[in-house]
Protein backbone atom coordinates (compact mmCIF):
# COMPACT_ATOMS: atom_id res chain seq x y z
CA UNK A 1 0.00 0.00 0.00
CA UNK A 2 1.36 3.45 -0.88
CA UNK A 3 1.92 6.09 1.77
CA UNK A 4 -0.96 8.14 0.41
CA UNK A 5 -3.30 5.19 0.55
CA UNK A 6 -2.19 4.41 4.11
CA UNK A 7 -2.79 8.00 5.13
CA UNK A 8 -6.26 7.79 3.69
CA UNK A 9 -6.84 4.64 5.72
CA UNK A 10 -6.57 6.47 9.06
CA UNK A 11 -9.90 7.12 10.66
CA UNK A 12 -10.35 10.92 10.37
CA UNK A 13 -11.73 10.95 13.90
CA UNK A 14 -8.60 9.29 15.22
CA UNK A 15 -6.46 11.77 13.33
CA UNK A 16 -8.39 14.66 14.85
CA UNK A 17 -7.95 13.22 18.33
CA UNK A 18 -4.20 12.85 17.80
CA UNK A 19 -3.96 16.41 16.52
CA UNK A 20 -6.06 17.64 19.43
CA UNK A 21 -3.84 15.94 22.01
CA UNK A 22 -0.64 17.35 20.54
CA UNK A 23 -2.17 20.82 20.22
CA UNK A 24 -3.38 20.70 23.83
CA UNK A 25 0.09 19.75 25.07
CA UNK A 26 1.69 22.56 23.05
CA UNK A 27 -0.81 25.04 24.49
CA UNK A 28 -0.14 23.80 28.03
CA UNK A 29 3.61 24.18 27.55
CA UNK A 30 3.33 27.60 25.91
CA UNK A 31 0.73 28.88 28.35
CA UNK A 32 2.56 27.80 31.48
CA UNK A 33 5.85 29.13 30.10
CA UNK A 34 4.20 32.48 29.48
CA UNK A 35 2.90 32.39 33.06
CA UNK A 36 6.27 31.56 34.61
CA UNK A 37 9.63 30.47 33.20
CA UNK A 38 10.01 27.73 35.83
CA UNK A 39 7.20 25.76 34.20
CA UNK A 40 9.66 24.95 31.45
CA UNK A 41 11.21 22.48 33.89
CA UNK A 42 7.88 20.64 34.00
CA UNK A 43 7.51 20.89 30.23
CA UNK A 44 10.78 18.99 29.85
CA UNK A 45 9.18 16.11 31.75
CA UNK A 46 6.00 16.50 29.73
CA UNK A 47 7.59 16.23 26.31
CA UNK A 48 9.98 13.45 27.21
CA UNK A 49 7.08 11.59 28.79
CA UNK A 50 5.21 11.99 25.52
CA UNK A 51 8.16 10.52 23.62
CA UNK A 52 8.49 7.64 26.10
CA UNK A 53 4.81 6.85 25.53
CA UNK A 54 5.27 6.85 21.76
CA UNK A 55 8.29 4.55 22.03
CA UNK A 56 6.58 2.14 24.42
CA UNK A 57 3.53 1.82 22.19
CA UNK A 58 5.59 1.44 19.03
CA UNK A 59 7.85 -1.22 20.55
CA UNK A 60 5.04 -2.99 22.44
CA UNK A 61 7.39 -2.59 25.38
CA UNK A 62 5.82 -4.89 27.96
CA UNK A 63 7.90 -7.15 30.21
CA UNK A 64 4.88 -9.22 31.13
CA UNK A 65 4.15 -10.01 27.48
CA UNK A 66 7.85 -10.75 26.94
CA UNK A 67 8.01 -13.37 29.70
CA UNK A 68 4.59 -14.81 28.88
CA UNK A 69 5.66 -15.29 25.26
CA UNK A 70 8.94 -16.85 26.37
CA UNK A 71 7.76 -19.19 29.13
CA UNK A 72 4.27 -20.05 27.85
CA UNK A 73 4.77 -20.42 24.10
CA UNK A 74 8.55 -20.35 23.67
CA UNK A 75 8.71 -17.16 21.57
CA UNK A 76 11.73 -15.08 22.66
CA UNK A 77 11.33 -12.10 20.31
CA UNK A 78 10.18 -9.47 22.80
CA UNK A 79 12.50 -10.64 25.59
CA UNK A 80 15.41 -10.38 23.15
CA UNK A 81 14.21 -6.94 22.05
CA UNK A 82 14.14 -5.72 25.65
CA UNK A 83 17.68 -7.00 26.22
CA UNK A 84 18.89 -5.20 23.11
CA UNK A 85 17.04 -2.07 24.18
CA UNK A 86 18.86 -2.20 27.52
CA UNK A 87 22.21 -2.44 25.73
CA UNK A 88 21.37 0.50 23.45
CA UNK A 89 20.12 2.55 26.38
CA UNK A 90 23.36 1.60 28.17
CA UNK A 91 25.38 2.96 25.25
CA UNK A 92 23.59 6.30 25.40
CA UNK A 93 23.85 6.28 29.20
CA UNK A 94 27.63 5.75 29.00
CA UNK A 95 27.97 8.86 26.84
CA UNK A 96 25.86 10.88 29.26
CA UNK A 97 27.79 9.58 32.30
CA UNK A 98 31.17 10.24 30.71
CA UNK A 99 30.19 13.86 30.07
CA UNK A 100 29.24 14.24 33.74
CA UNK A 101 25.62 15.10 32.96
CA UNK A 102 23.95 11.97 34.29
CA UNK A 103 21.25 12.37 36.92
CA UNK A 104 21.30 8.65 37.72
CA UNK A 105 22.05 7.38 41.25
CA UNK A 106 22.76 3.71 41.95
CA UNK A 107 20.62 1.88 44.51
CA UNK A 108 21.68 -0.23 47.50
CA UNK A 109 22.61 -3.74 46.43
CA UNK A 110 21.49 -6.79 48.39
CA UNK A 111 19.16 -9.77 48.34
CA UNK A 112 16.17 -7.48 48.95
CA UNK A 113 16.25 -6.61 45.24
CA UNK A 114 15.82 -10.30 44.30
CA UNK A 115 12.84 -10.73 46.63
CA UNK A 116 11.28 -7.49 45.40
CA UNK A 117 11.80 -8.51 41.78
CA UNK A 118 10.20 -11.90 42.44
CA UNK A 119 7.04 -10.35 43.91
CA UNK A 120 6.93 -7.85 41.06
CA UNK A 121 7.39 -10.61 38.46
CA UNK A 122 4.50 -12.68 39.82
CA UNK A 123 2.31 -9.57 39.92
CA UNK A 124 2.97 -8.49 36.36
CA UNK A 125 2.05 -11.93 35.01
CA UNK A 126 -1.16 -11.99 37.08
CA UNK A 127 -2.20 -8.56 35.85
CA UNK A 128 -1.14 -9.09 32.23
CA UNK A 129 1.03 -6.00 32.08
CA UNK A 130 4.11 -4.59 33.79
CA UNK A 131 4.32 -1.04 35.10
CA UNK A 132 5.39 0.45 31.76
CA UNK A 133 3.27 -1.92 29.66
CA UNK A 134 0.13 -1.05 31.61
CA UNK A 135 0.76 2.64 30.97
CA UNK A 136 1.04 2.41 27.19
CA UNK A 137 -1.89 -0.03 27.08
CA UNK A 138 -3.96 2.52 29.02
CA UNK A 139 -3.04 5.00 26.31
CA UNK A 140 -4.37 2.52 23.76
CA UNK A 141 -7.75 2.60 25.50
CA UNK A 142 -7.36 -0.57 27.58
CA UNK A 143 -9.27 0.10 30.82
CA UNK A 144 -8.02 -3.13 32.37
CA UNK A 145 -4.51 -1.69 32.16
CA UNK A 146 -5.78 1.50 33.82
CA UNK A 147 -7.01 -0.67 36.70
CA UNK A 148 -3.50 -2.13 36.99
CA UNK A 149 -2.01 1.39 37.15
CA UNK A 150 -4.54 2.40 39.82
CA UNK A 151 -3.89 -0.75 41.82
CA UNK A 152 -0.11 -0.16 41.73
CA UNK A 153 -0.63 3.45 42.81
CA UNK A 154 -3.01 2.78 45.71
CA UNK A 155 -1.05 -0.20 47.02
CA UNK A 156 2.19 1.75 47.11
CA UNK A 157 0.67 4.70 48.96
CA UNK A 158 -0.85 2.40 51.58
CA UNK A 159 2.14 0.07 51.86
CA UNK A 160 4.68 2.83 52.58
CA UNK A 161 2.68 4.15 55.54
CA UNK A 162 1.27 1.02 57.15
CA UNK A 163 2.32 0.72 60.78
CA UNK A 164 0.35 -0.82 63.64
CA UNK A 165 0.62 -4.60 63.84
CA UNK A 166 3.19 -4.68 61.01
CA UNK A 167 5.68 -3.02 63.38
CA UNK A 168 5.78 -6.29 65.29
CA UNK A 169 7.15 -7.99 62.18
CA UNK A 170 10.19 -5.71 62.04
CA UNK A 171 13.46 -7.22 63.31
CA UNK A 172 14.80 -5.35 66.35
CA UNK A 173 18.09 -4.73 64.55
CA UNK A 174 16.26 -2.78 61.82
CA UNK A 175 14.51 -0.61 64.41
CA UNK A 176 17.77 0.14 66.21
CA UNK A 177 19.57 0.92 62.99
CA UNK A 178 16.71 3.15 61.81
CA UNK A 179 16.73 5.08 65.08
CA UNK A 180 20.46 5.60 64.71
CA UNK A 181 20.01 7.42 61.40
CA UNK A 182 19.01 10.63 63.16
CA UNK A 183 16.03 11.37 60.92
CA UNK A 184 14.02 14.56 61.47
CA UNK A 185 11.48 14.36 64.26
CA UNK A 186 8.57 14.73 61.83
CA UNK A 187 9.42 11.30 60.40
CA UNK A 188 8.01 8.61 62.68
CA UNK A 189 10.70 6.11 61.83
CA UNK A 190 9.69 3.46 64.37
CA UNK A 191 6.09 3.42 63.18
CA UNK A 192 5.87 1.77 59.78
CA UNK A 193 7.25 -1.43 58.35
CA UNK A 194 8.61 0.21 55.22
CA UNK A 195 10.22 3.05 57.19
CA UNK A 196 12.20 0.61 59.29
CA UNK A 197 12.94 -1.57 56.26
CA UNK A 198 14.39 1.44 54.43
CA UNK A 199 16.28 3.19 57.23
CA UNK A 200 17.15 0.05 59.18
CA UNK A 201 18.08 -2.33 56.38
CA UNK A 202 18.19 -0.98 52.81
CA UNK A 203 20.22 2.14 53.61
CA UNK A 204 22.85 -0.04 55.30
CA UNK A 205 23.48 -2.01 52.11
CA UNK A 206 26.38 -1.10 49.82
CA UNK A 207 25.80 1.23 46.88
CA UNK A 208 27.99 0.47 43.90
CA UNK A 209 28.29 0.37 40.14
CA UNK A 210 30.38 -1.90 37.96
CA UNK A 211 32.70 1.07 37.40
CA UNK A 212 33.33 1.61 41.11
CA UNK A 213 33.90 -2.13 41.59
CA UNK A 214 36.93 -1.73 39.31
CA UNK A 215 38.08 1.41 41.07
CA UNK A 216 36.90 3.85 38.39
CA UNK A 217 34.36 6.64 38.78
CA UNK A 218 31.10 6.59 36.86
CA UNK A 219 32.04 9.88 35.19
CA UNK A 220 35.35 8.59 33.81
CA UNK A 221 35.49 7.25 30.25
CA UNK A 222 36.86 3.91 31.47
CA UNK A 223 34.24 3.68 34.17
CA UNK A 224 31.33 4.59 31.91
CA UNK A 225 32.27 2.56 28.84
CA UNK A 226 34.33 -0.34 30.15
CA UNK A 227 33.00 -0.78 33.68
CA UNK A 228 29.33 0.08 33.37
CA UNK A 229 28.65 -0.58 29.68
CA UNK A 230 30.95 -3.45 28.68
CA UNK A 231 31.18 -5.39 31.94
CA UNK A 232 27.87 -4.30 33.42
CA UNK A 233 25.60 -4.50 30.38
CA UNK A 234 27.11 -5.88 27.17
CA UNK A 235 28.83 -9.04 28.45
CA UNK A 236 26.07 -10.29 30.77
CA UNK A 237 23.51 -9.27 28.15
CA UNK A 238 25.28 -11.26 25.44
CA UNK A 239 25.53 -14.25 27.78
CA UNK A 240 21.81 -14.06 28.56
CA UNK A 241 20.97 -13.84 24.87
CA UNK A 242 23.13 -16.94 24.31
CA UNK A 243 21.07 -18.79 26.93
CA UNK A 244 17.83 -17.66 25.29
CA UNK A 245 19.19 -18.75 21.90
CA UNK A 246 20.23 -22.17 23.20
CA UNK A 247 16.91 -22.92 24.91
CA UNK A 248 14.28 -21.19 22.76
CA UNK A 249 15.63 -20.19 19.36
CA UNK A 250 18.36 -22.58 18.22
CA UNK A 251 16.25 -25.63 17.52
CA UNK A 252 13.88 -23.83 15.14
CA UNK A 253 16.69 -22.08 13.33
CA UNK A 254 18.71 -25.26 12.82
CA UNK A 255 15.64 -27.14 11.65
CA UNK A 256 15.18 -24.54 8.92
CA UNK A 257 18.86 -24.79 7.98
CA UNK A 258 18.68 -28.56 7.66
CA UNK A 259 15.49 -28.26 5.62
CA UNK A 260 17.35 -25.83 3.34
CA UNK A 261 20.01 -28.47 2.70
CA UNK A 262 22.78 -27.68 5.19
CA UNK A 263 24.79 -30.79 6.16
CA UNK A 264 25.59 -30.10 9.83
CA UNK A 265 25.72 -27.16 12.15
CA UNK A 266 29.02 -25.42 12.75
CA UNK A 267 29.94 -22.32 14.71
CA UNK A 268 29.12 -20.15 11.68
CA UNK A 269 25.58 -21.49 11.71
CA UNK A 270 25.33 -20.88 15.44
CA UNK A 271 26.46 -17.27 15.00
CA UNK A 272 24.01 -16.82 12.12
CA UNK A 273 21.23 -18.20 14.31
CA UNK A 274 22.22 -15.90 17.20
CA UNK A 275 22.22 -12.89 14.88
CA UNK A 276 18.92 -13.89 13.27
CA UNK A 277 17.35 -14.02 16.74
CA UNK A 278 18.62 -10.51 17.49
CA UNK A 279 17.45 -8.87 14.27
CA UNK A 280 14.03 -10.51 14.55
CA UNK A 281 13.30 -8.10 17.41
CA UNK A 282 13.76 -4.99 15.29
CA UNK A 283 10.69 -3.05 16.41
CA UNK A 284 11.37 -3.40 20.15
CA UNK A 285 15.07 -2.66 19.58
CA UNK A 286 14.29 0.53 17.62
CA UNK A 287 11.98 1.60 20.43
CA UNK A 288 14.76 0.82 22.92
CA UNK A 289 17.26 2.93 21.01
CA UNK A 290 14.79 5.81 20.84
CA UNK A 291 14.07 5.41 24.56
CA UNK A 292 17.79 5.43 25.28
CA UNK A 293 18.42 8.59 23.25
CA UNK A 294 15.37 10.27 24.76
CA UNK A 295 16.42 9.36 28.31
CA UNK A 296 19.92 10.69 27.65
CA UNK A 297 18.59 13.97 26.26
CA UNK A 298 16.14 14.13 29.15
CA UNK A 299 19.03 14.00 31.64
CA UNK A 300 20.86 16.67 29.64
CA UNK A 301 17.89 19.03 29.44
CA UNK A 302 17.10 18.60 33.14
CA UNK A 303 20.69 19.33 34.13
CA UNK A 304 20.74 22.40 31.90
CA UNK A 305 17.64 23.84 33.51
CA UNK A 306 18.93 23.01 37.00
CA UNK A 307 22.05 25.01 36.22
CA UNK A 308 19.96 27.85 34.80
CA UNK A 309 17.62 28.02 37.79
CA UNK A 310 20.36 27.30 40.35
CA UNK A 311 18.79 24.20 41.90
CA UNK A 312 19.49 20.49 42.09
CA UNK A 313 15.88 19.48 42.60
CA UNK A 314 12.46 20.77 41.57
CA UNK A 315 11.39 21.30 45.20
CA UNK A 316 12.85 24.82 45.49
CA UNK A 317 11.30 25.74 42.13
CA UNK A 318 7.84 24.72 43.34
CA UNK A 319 8.46 26.66 46.52
CA UNK A 320 9.48 29.77 44.58
CA UNK A 321 6.29 29.42 42.54
CA UNK A 322 4.37 29.61 45.79
CA UNK A 323 3.51 25.94 46.16
CA UNK A 324 5.36 24.65 49.20
CA UNK A 325 2.74 22.09 50.20
CA UNK A 326 3.88 18.51 49.97
CA UNK A 327 7.61 19.10 49.82
CA UNK A 328 9.70 16.55 51.70
CA UNK A 329 11.32 17.54 54.98
CA UNK A 330 14.46 18.23 52.93
CA UNK A 331 12.54 20.67 50.74
CA UNK A 332 12.69 18.30 47.77
CA UNK A 333 10.25 16.40 45.57
CA UNK A 334 10.65 13.35 43.37
CA UNK A 335 12.68 14.62 40.43
CA UNK A 336 14.68 11.79 38.83
CA UNK A 337 15.58 13.62 35.62
CA UNK A 338 15.00 10.48 33.57
CA UNK A 339 12.33 7.90 32.82
CA UNK A 340 10.61 6.56 35.92
CA UNK A 341 7.16 5.14 36.52
CA UNK A 342 5.96 4.06 39.94
CA UNK A 343 6.89 6.79 42.42
CA UNK A 344 4.83 9.48 40.74
CA UNK A 345 1.92 7.03 40.61
CA UNK A 346 2.22 6.58 44.37
CA UNK A 347 2.42 10.37 44.80
CA UNK A 348 -0.97 10.90 43.12
CA UNK A 349 -2.66 8.68 45.67
CA UNK A 350 -0.47 9.83 48.56
CA UNK A 351 -1.50 13.43 47.90
CA UNK A 352 -5.20 12.51 47.80
CA UNK A 353 -4.93 10.44 51.00
CA UNK A 354 -3.09 13.24 52.78
CA UNK A 355 -5.77 15.72 51.75
CA UNK A 356 -8.39 13.33 53.12
CA UNK A 357 -6.67 13.23 56.50
CA UNK A 358 -4.22 10.30 56.30
CA UNK A 359 -0.86 11.88 57.18
CA UNK A 360 1.51 10.75 54.44
CA UNK A 361 4.32 13.16 55.30
CA UNK A 362 5.42 11.28 58.41
CA UNK A 363 6.92 8.36 56.48
CA UNK A 364 10.33 8.20 54.82
CA UNK A 365 9.10 7.51 51.30
CA UNK A 366 6.99 10.64 50.98
CA UNK A 367 7.99 12.78 53.94
CA UNK A 368 11.76 12.42 53.71
CA UNK A 369 12.49 11.40 50.11
CA UNK A 370 9.88 12.23 47.51
CA UNK A 371 7.23 14.56 48.88
CA UNK A 372 3.62 14.65 47.71
CA UNK A 373 3.29 17.87 45.74
CA UNK A 374 0.05 18.87 44.07
CA UNK A 375 -0.28 16.53 41.04
CA UNK A 376 -0.97 19.56 38.83
CA UNK A 377 2.60 20.81 39.34
CA UNK A 378 4.39 17.55 40.11
CA UNK A 379 7.17 17.25 37.47
CA UNK A 380 7.17 13.45 37.30
CA UNK A 381 3.38 13.45 37.09
CA UNK A 382 3.58 15.60 33.99
CA UNK A 383 5.81 12.87 32.53
CA UNK A 384 3.36 10.07 33.31
CA UNK A 385 0.27 11.90 32.07
CA UNK A 386 2.10 12.82 28.87
CA UNK A 387 3.23 9.21 28.54
CA UNK A 388 -0.43 8.13 28.35
CA UNK A 389 -1.01 10.74 25.66
CA UNK A 390 2.11 9.78 23.71
CA UNK A 391 0.97 6.17 23.62
CA UNK A 392 -2.54 7.26 22.68
CA UNK A 393 -1.34 9.40 19.77
CA UNK A 394 0.85 6.59 18.45
CA UNK A 395 -2.01 4.09 18.79
CA UNK A 396 -4.42 6.48 17.06
CA UNK A 397 -2.03 6.97 14.15
CA UNK A 398 -1.41 3.21 13.88
CA UNK A 399 -5.09 2.36 14.06
CA UNK A 400 -4.46 0.48 17.29
CA UNK A 401 -6.56 2.59 19.64
CA UNK A 402 -9.63 0.86 20.99
CA UNK A 403 -11.59 1.18 24.22
CA UNK A 404 -11.61 -2.15 26.01
CA UNK A 405 -13.54 -2.63 29.24
CA UNK A 406 -12.49 -5.27 31.77
CA UNK A 407 -14.53 -8.29 32.77
CA UNK A 408 -14.96 -9.12 36.45
CA UNK A 409 -12.30 -11.81 36.17
CA UNK A 410 -9.68 -9.69 34.35
CA UNK A 411 -10.39 -6.78 36.73
CA UNK A 412 -9.77 -9.04 39.73
CA UNK A 413 -6.47 -10.23 38.32
CA UNK A 414 -5.53 -6.66 37.42
CA UNK A 415 -6.07 -5.51 40.99
CA UNK A 416 -4.25 -8.50 42.55
CA UNK A 417 -1.35 -8.27 40.12
CA UNK A 418 -1.15 -4.50 40.46
CA UNK A 419 -1.05 -4.81 44.25
CA UNK A 420 1.83 -7.28 44.07
CA UNK A 421 3.68 -4.98 41.66
CA UNK A 422 3.09 -2.04 44.01
CA UNK A 423 4.60 -3.96 46.93
CA UNK A 424 7.48 -5.25 44.81
CA UNK A 425 8.18 -1.74 43.56
CA UNK A 426 8.50 -0.29 47.02
CA UNK A 427 10.63 -3.14 48.30
CA UNK A 428 12.92 -2.88 45.26
CA UNK A 429 12.87 0.94 45.11
CA UNK A 430 11.43 0.84 41.60
CA UNK A 431 9.59 -1.21 39.01
CA UNK A 432 10.64 -3.00 35.83
CA UNK A 433 11.76 0.41 34.54
CA UNK A 434 13.31 2.17 37.53
CA UNK A 435 14.68 -0.90 39.32
CA UNK A 436 15.63 -2.99 36.29
CA UNK A 437 15.73 -1.32 32.88
CA UNK A 438 17.36 1.94 33.98
CA UNK A 439 19.62 0.47 36.67
CA UNK A 440 20.98 -2.35 34.51
CA UNK A 441 21.66 -0.01 31.60
CA UNK A 442 23.51 2.43 33.90
CA UNK A 443 25.78 -0.27 35.33
CA UNK A 444 24.07 -0.72 38.70
CA UNK A 445 24.40 -4.37 39.88
CA UNK A 446 21.19 -4.12 41.93
CA UNK A 447 19.31 -3.92 38.62
CA UNK A 448 20.50 -7.41 37.70
CA UNK A 449 19.42 -8.71 41.11
CA UNK A 450 15.94 -7.25 40.64
CA UNK A 451 15.88 -8.73 37.13
CA UNK A 452 16.86 -12.19 38.41
CA UNK A 453 14.01 -12.10 40.90
CA UNK A 454 11.63 -10.77 38.26
CA UNK A 455 12.44 -13.64 35.87
CA UNK A 456 11.83 -16.16 38.65
CA UNK A 457 8.57 -14.50 39.62
CA UNK A 458 7.45 -14.27 36.00
CA UNK A 459 8.17 -17.97 35.48
CA UNK A 460 6.08 -18.89 38.51
CA UNK A 461 3.34 -16.45 37.46
CA UNK A 462 3.15 -17.85 33.93
CA UNK A 463 3.07 -21.47 35.16
CA UNK A 464 0.39 -20.63 37.70
CA UNK A 465 -1.71 -18.89 35.08
CA UNK A 466 -1.40 -21.84 32.69
CA UNK A 467 -2.56 -24.16 35.47
CA UNK A 468 -5.43 -21.82 36.35
CA UNK A 469 -6.59 -21.53 32.74
CA UNK A 470 -6.46 -25.27 32.12
CA UNK A 471 -8.38 -25.94 35.33
CA UNK A 472 -11.05 -23.43 34.35
CA UNK A 473 -11.41 -24.83 30.87
CA UNK A 474 -11.61 -28.39 32.20
CA UNK A 475 -14.48 -27.32 34.49
CA UNK A 476 -16.29 -25.54 31.68
CA UNK A 477 -16.14 -28.55 29.37
CA UNK A 478 -16.74 -31.17 32.07
Amino acid sequence: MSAAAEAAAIDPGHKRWALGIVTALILISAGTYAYHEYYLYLSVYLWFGFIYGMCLQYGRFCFSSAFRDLFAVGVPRMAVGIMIAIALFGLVGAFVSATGLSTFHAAPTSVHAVIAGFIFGVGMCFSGGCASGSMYKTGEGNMNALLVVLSISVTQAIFVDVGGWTNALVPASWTQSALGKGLPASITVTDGWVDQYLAGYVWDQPVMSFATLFGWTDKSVLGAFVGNLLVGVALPGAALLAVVYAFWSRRGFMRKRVAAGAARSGWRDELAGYWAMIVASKRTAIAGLALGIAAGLHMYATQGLRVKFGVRNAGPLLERMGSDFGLSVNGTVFDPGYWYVTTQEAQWVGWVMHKLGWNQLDNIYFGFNNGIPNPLINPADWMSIALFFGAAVMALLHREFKFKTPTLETATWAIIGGALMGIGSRLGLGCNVGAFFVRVSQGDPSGWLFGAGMVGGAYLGVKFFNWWTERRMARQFA
Partner: protein
Amino acid sequence: MHNSLWSLFAVLGAVMGFLMGYATAPMIESGLMSGQGGKAPTQIETRKAIEQYYKDLYKEE
Protein backbone atom coordinates in the same frame (compact mmCIF):
# COMPACT_ATOMS: atom_id res chain seq x y z
CA MET B 1 -0.35 7.60 8.18
CA HIS B 2 3.20 8.42 7.18
CA ASN B 3 2.31 12.07 6.59
CA SER B 4 0.73 12.30 10.03
CA LEU B 5 3.75 10.68 11.65
CA TRP B 6 6.18 12.98 9.89
CA SER B 7 4.11 15.99 10.94
CA LEU B 8 4.23 14.72 14.51
CA PHE B 9 8.01 14.24 14.31
CA ALA B 10 8.38 17.78 12.94
CA VAL B 11 6.40 19.21 15.87
CA LEU B 12 8.42 17.14 18.34
CA GLY B 13 11.65 18.24 16.66
CA ALA B 14 10.70 21.88 17.03
CA VAL B 15 9.72 21.50 20.70
CA MET B 16 12.83 19.47 21.47
CA GLY B 17 15.02 21.98 19.66
CA PHE B 18 13.61 24.76 21.82
CA LEU B 19 14.03 22.80 25.06
CA MET B 20 17.55 21.60 24.25
CA GLY B 21 18.59 25.09 23.20
CA TYR B 22 17.17 26.49 26.41
CA ALA B 23 19.11 23.90 28.42
CA THR B 24 22.36 24.30 26.51
CA ALA B 25 22.78 28.04 26.99
CA PRO B 26 23.25 27.88 30.80
CA MET B 27 25.59 24.89 30.37
CA ILE B 28 27.86 26.97 28.16
CA GLU B 29 27.54 30.08 30.32
CA SER B 30 28.46 28.18 33.47
CA GLY B 31 31.46 26.58 31.80
CA LEU B 32 30.07 23.05 32.06
CA MET B 33 30.31 22.57 28.30
CA SER B 34 33.25 24.79 27.50
CA GLY B 35 35.88 22.85 29.37
CA GLN B 36 36.42 25.74 31.78
CA GLY B 37 35.67 23.60 34.79
CA GLY B 38 32.29 25.02 35.66
CA LYS B 39 30.36 23.48 38.49
CA ALA B 40 26.69 22.69 38.88
CA PRO B 41 25.08 24.06 42.03
CA THR B 42 25.89 21.81 44.96
CA GLN B 43 23.40 23.05 47.52
CA ILE B 44 19.74 22.22 47.48
CA GLU B 45 17.94 25.36 48.48
CA THR B 46 15.53 24.96 51.34
CA ARG B 47 13.53 27.61 53.03
CA LYS B 48 13.98 27.94 56.75
CA ALA B 49 10.24 28.26 57.16
CA ILE B 50 9.73 24.78 55.74
CA GLU B 51 12.19 23.25 58.17
CA GLN B 52 10.40 25.10 60.96
CA TYR B 53 7.05 23.83 59.69
CA TYR B 54 8.15 20.23 60.15
CA LYS B 55 9.62 21.00 63.58
CA ASP B 56 6.31 22.53 64.56
CA LEU B 57 4.48 19.45 63.37
CA TYR B 58 6.48 17.44 65.86
CA LYS B 59 5.74 19.89 68.67
CA GLU B 60 2.01 19.62 68.07
CA GLU B 61 2.19 15.88 68.50
